[in-house]
């Protein structure tokens, strides 16, 4: 305590070596005492009621006469019937990209497995032909996945991307969340926008 006493005399700015003009302190306590009018409770309560009932009536009108192009004024979404438009950056469940013939693009290099912070990916690599690797088993434990998007970021083959799928991830049994290669494969056309997004964000501004 003794080291910090005397703070009242020397402003704190002196102690940290920053001039007071830089700190630009602004007092926020607008008034110390309430006026009698405010002390009576009633005025402020009425003001609060006016605000909330303003919201009430505007929203009621918004339900009865919705603004053009929308169903209602409040922006809550009726989830299963209506769905959000996801931004292009959105990271949903990771999926594997398939070639046109249905085989996976993945070459089982193991970068995603290595990078995954949650250790959700495990790959068993095999060779189709000499020098042509492929994942014999590709297990993605969605119970562990944290949707960080590192797998997509490190993949040198555009073989795994974050899709915009977010449904079907609530399961009673954890084993059902261990997705195998077959469950994860998506045709290239389905994740085209994401592939384009990934390619673009990494190249456009990097240098």
């Amino acid at each position, binding site marked *: 305590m003794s080291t910090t006493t005397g703070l009242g005399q020397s402003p704190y700015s002196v102690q940290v070596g920053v001039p007071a003009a830089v700190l630009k302190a602004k007092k926020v306590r607008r008034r110390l005492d309430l006026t009698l009018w405010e002390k009576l409770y009633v005025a402020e309560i009425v003001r609060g009621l006016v605000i909330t009932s303003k919201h009430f009536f505007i929203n009621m009108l918004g339900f009865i006469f919705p603004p053009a192009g929308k169903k209602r004024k*409040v922006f809550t979404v009726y989830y299963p019937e209506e769905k959000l438009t996801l931004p292009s950056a959105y990271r949903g469940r990771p999926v594997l990209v398939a070639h046109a013939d249905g085989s996976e693009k993945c070459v089982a290099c193991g970068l995603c497995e290595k990078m995954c912070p949650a250790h959700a990916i495990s790959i068993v690599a095999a060779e189709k032909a000499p020098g042509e690797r492929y994942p014999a088993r590709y297990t993605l434990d969605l119970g562990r996945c944290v949707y960080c998007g590192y797998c997509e970021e490190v993949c040198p083959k555009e073989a795994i991307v974050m899709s915009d799928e977010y449904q079907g991830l609530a399961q009673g049994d954890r084993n059902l969340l261990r997705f195998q290669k077959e469950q994860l494969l998506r045709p290239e056309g389905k994740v085209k926008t994401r592939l384009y997004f990934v390619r673009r964000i990494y190249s456009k501004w990097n240098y």
Partner: protein
Amino acid sequence: MLADLIESLAKIVFIFTVNVGVFAPILGWVERKQSAVMQDRIGANRADILGFTAIGLFHSLADAVKLLTKEDFVPANANKFFHTLAPFIALVPAISAFAIIPFGGRYELFGREINLVIADLDVGILYVFALAGLATYGTVLAGWSSRSNWSLLGGLRASAQMLSYEVAMGLSIIGIIIVYGSLRLTDIGAAQENFFRWGIFLQPVGFIIYMTCAIAENKRIPFDIPEAESELVAGYFTEYSGMKFVMFWMAEFLEMVTISAIVTTLFFGAWHIPFVTDAMLLSWFSGFAGPNGAAALAMAVNIAVFFAKVSFFIWLQMTIRWTLPRFRYDQVMRMCWKMLLPLSLINLSITGLVVLLL
């Protein structure tokens, strides 16, 4: 004799249906929906029958089914007898308080004089206070018998708060009683036929005090300290579930209806439309409906006007509940004893003086 019995039975059935059958379940929905609209949300809208949702109205039905079939849990250490008794004690006064509130005027129908009130008691408004006093036991016993620290604290807070506010509430009403010279609610209602003799113009301070005390008595925000969920989990009904929980809940809603009805009767012209007397109504309707039809129509108009006013005050109470933060325990007591009580005494003496001088 038989006709009397039928008449009063009809009135009881009507009020009971309106209160327990219509208001209590629907208010649960109204509270959810109104708060949602106030807060830029949509609110309950999922429960449906054959795909028809009726803007969420079926939620009250679903709630009822859910709560009735829910396990009725009693803590191991609780005093089972009082734990079971408490919700009933809370609910019964809330239901029976409506008996003395007039919801219409006095009319001649088929040669019988019909007064639209279940019991036209001479002591009138005092009856409501008596019942409010009994309602305290519900919360106190619930808090005590649960054998939970939160419940006990809630019960203690509830008893102190409800006792204190009863005093100020009683005193705030006396002004109205002096002005109209009667305790009988039908008299007070009839006296407000003239728009400029509505209670709100004669006793504006009394209205504010009564409204405050009534909300405090009903233990709703900003006075919900006995159940303040962020402090005491749920206060005196922390340990209740299922049907018993619903009874506290219903008691709260019914009390809200009663408060609105009393405010309407005492301060907002009861069943009257401004500048329209019952005689005017009768003369308008008798033009095309005959004397009996006119009386029936006038009664219907009275009832409609009365319940419209009641609905408005329910809306107002809900708006207050969803707008304001809650007090602290000591602030509630200070407000009662140091602000409302002196204020109502001053109001009382000024009213007495004015009445005496005029």
